[in-house]
């Protein structure tokens, strides 16, 4: 009996947003009279952090502290239309809609401040801490609260904004497949190290080293959540998961979590992540959606690592111990490939 180590590599790119576009999202932003802001969306927070990332985007664009902004999702009576939370479109599409809405609200806020300070709105800047002042003259200042209060009670202005982001639908050519699928791509590359038991076909993931390019990590902790959890899911897809273990035979479909297999907390491996940021020209502050692409490279990297360890190519997912063992048997034993 022997356990064999192997390393496998894979790299991918991933299209951000619904393919071909045609998937609008809207946002509404308004302030209370004391300069605290609400963002209304109909987008969904599934755990990916939609409320949180749009909150940061709104605060950044408005020029106010994040604590002064709250995001409300998702009520069809108050939140304007959004296509939904899928296709890695949330950050990109909704984020852009929030920027547009926040820019509009910010412009009103600055006009209100300008009127109070008796200056030109174009000369005003925000300090991100709740103050607005004249560029180059920090002493000529007014708080966001005072500006918004003045707008509401003295000037009769609505410190609010509407935003929409739409990439118009692209056609697909039936003959050649010519199309404009999306406007930006995220990237990833990773190395998976596995250990394969050549008598049972068991595969254990030992370590993952990865590099993910996400445009901009709008919130590094939320990005990390996606990348760590996504890689776990990729590992799960590679080695464990199936609703039809004998596909295309339809029998023995799992109906519970005892038989629908996913790696448990005892199966996880250290995952060392590097985050690269090449801002997307049309992404909100350059951000691309990291939520989907993070799982994809793990599947082939595991397959390649298994091959590197024992010389067996399993081209059908999931790479179960049975498939690995059959491969080892078919070639008369493990055939470890070049160490890397």
């Amino acid at each position, binding site marked *: 009996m022997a356990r064999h180590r192997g390393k496998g*590599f894979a*790299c*991918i*790119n*991933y299209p951000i947003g619904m*393919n071909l576009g*045609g998937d609008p999202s809207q946002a509404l932003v308004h302030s209370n009279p004391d300069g605290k802001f609400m963002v209304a969306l*109909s987008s*969904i927070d599934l*755990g990916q952090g939609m409320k*949180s990332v749009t909150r*940061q*985007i709104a605060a*950044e664009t408005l020029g106010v*502290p994040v604590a002064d902004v709250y995001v409300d*999702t998702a009520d*069809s009576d108050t939140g304007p239309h*959004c296509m939904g*939370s*899928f296709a890695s479109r949330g950050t990109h599409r909704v984020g852009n809609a929030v*920027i547009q809405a926040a820019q509009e609200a910010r412009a009103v806020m600055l006009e209100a401040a300008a009127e109070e300070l008796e200056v030109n709105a174009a000369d005003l800047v925000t300090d991100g801490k709740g103050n607005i002042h004249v560029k180059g003259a920090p002493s000529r200042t007014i708080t966001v609260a005072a500006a918004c209060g003045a707008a509401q009670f003295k000037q009769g202005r609505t410190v609010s904004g509407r935003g929409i982001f739409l990439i118009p*639908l*692209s*056609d697909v*050519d039936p003959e*050649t497949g010519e*199309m404009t*699928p999306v406007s930006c*791509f995220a*990237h990833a590359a*990773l*190395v998976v190290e596995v250990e394969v038991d050549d008598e049972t076909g068991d595969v254990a993931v030992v370590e993952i*080293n990865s590099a993910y390019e996400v445009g*901009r990590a*709008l919130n*590094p902790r939320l990005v*990390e959540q996606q990348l760590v959890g996504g890689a776990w899911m990729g590992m799960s897809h590679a080695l464990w*998961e199936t609703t*039809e273990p004998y596909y*295309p035979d*339809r029998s023995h*479909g799992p*109906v*519970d979590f005892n038989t*629908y297999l996913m790696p448990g907390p005892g199966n996880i491996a250290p995952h060392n*992540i*590097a*985050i*690269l*940021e*090449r801002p997307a*020209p*049309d992404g*909100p502050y350059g951000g691309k959606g990291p939520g*989907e*692409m993070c799982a994809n490279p793990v599947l*082939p990297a595991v*397959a390649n690592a298994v091959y590197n360890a024992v010389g067996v190519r399993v*081209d059908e997912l999931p790479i179960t111990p049975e498939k690995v063992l059959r491969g080892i048997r078919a070639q008369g034993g493990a055939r470890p490939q070049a160490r*890397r």
Partner: protein
Amino acid sequence: MPVEMRKEFFADERDDNLNEIGKPTQRQDILGHVTGRSPFYDDHLFEGLLHIRCVRSPHHHARIRSIDVSQAERMPGVKRVILARDVPHNLNTLLSLLDFGLDDEPLISEKKVSYKGEPVCAIVAESERAAREACAKVRVDWEPLPAVFDVEEAIKPGAPTVNETYPANLFVYHDRYDHQKLRYGDVEAAFARADHVVEGRYQMSPIEQAPMETCGAIAAPETNDRFVCYTSTQALFFSLGTAAKLLDVSSARLHFIGGTVGGGFGGKVDSLHEPMAILGAMLTGRPCKYMFDREEEMQVGAPRGAERWYLKDGVTRDGRIVARKFTGYFDSGAYTRLSSYAIIKAVGHLPGPYTIPNVYADVYCVFTNRTPATAMRGFGITGVDFAIETHMDKVAEAVGMDPIELRILNAYRDGDMKAHRRLAKNTALVECCQVAAEKARWQISPAARQASSLTGGGGERAQLPPHTVTDQKGLVPGGRTGGYARAAKRKEPDFAARPAQPAAPMPAAPAPQRPAASWEAPPSPPVPPPAPPAPPASPASSRGPARFSSSISGLRRR
């Protein structure tokens, strides 16, 4: 899990001095999560809540001779039995909201079932237990039919028809072909010139999204003659629009509330629960909950469908891939849901993040007698990426190259022409390869280490192929007239109602050093697609009133 921010890459393309962006701010919703108070859809209590359960097909494929609900109706606690005839507009396809594809799936089936678990009747009862017990008393007279489970078997002549809307078990693209094509250059000529040809077959398994919260919705009559619906949907207005259409009710009478969802991963877009719960509320006047239990979530709820891919690469001795050919089969299960769209996305993704001068693909959306497939994290891409990246290793072996160096050599770079005929920009594959290799202590050559996404692209690599071979393979007879489909009414896209093209979207963020926002411009000159004759304007459709994109018809037409 140490995370390092590699700020040295692309530093001159970023302004890192922002107030809130880039900060590790706590999640807005975290306090609710750790106190258990985050309001998921099922955390809304209603007095007098009724529960809906469905009677489901035990067969993979069967005709329904009759349904006898008399015993079930008399069971204690049963308030209402819902059959197909109770659904006002009982045929839908999810992407009809984008005007893509034909309505092919009932909410409750009446004549035939095409997958195990397909609902044929719903029971509304005072408790979940009462609904379950009544379901067991519904007597269905089934006539089992031959079933087909393998994608390549399903498209052979003589295979049982799974989906009556698409009798050949293939979705029809552009009213013209039984698959989606990608044609770029001349792969056969390139194979003939290549030093090695590497072939492979890859199979992706069906996978359950497995959110910890199962799919569900609670609907209740609301004041003002409306219905409120608390839902686990991933797409609030998608579900609202689908409900409005199936129930033939104004979208203004529906008030959807959601947004806090216990995981989705693509499994909560199918909008099966919202219309059923609202229908229950309409028929009983009481709040109704319809949710999948875990067994339904796993075997009735749509998975990420299986995919089968055949790949063939032509490669030169020095590792340059000169041609790549794909044949792909998406197992859509019994109905279309989103598989047709996943294929368009996959085709737009081919041949992966590499610059290859000749690319060809035929990708088929196949109907089989299994649970319909839908979206999942990595939708349309995960399966083919598995195929591509496993195949890349085989190519590396064939030419005796290090697998990472092979990728870097073939990686797409800024300015390269892609197979979907748009120029690449904002690429970063090379850098990701380099950093991953470095972190894993995987030695690569100095040339590979020095490569960059910013250089080496464009120029000749920006050119379209001098000649692209096209063909009429898979032409659907009578496609233009709708003869391919047995749908009673074919709806031509309503060009007259097409909205004006919106203005270019606004620049995204006020970062001064960023180039002006734009997406990929088509190259010039593009390969002219054959111009279809202008369709006749058609009268208003028979669809429900809630269509948000009245005629975004590009997908169907051309």
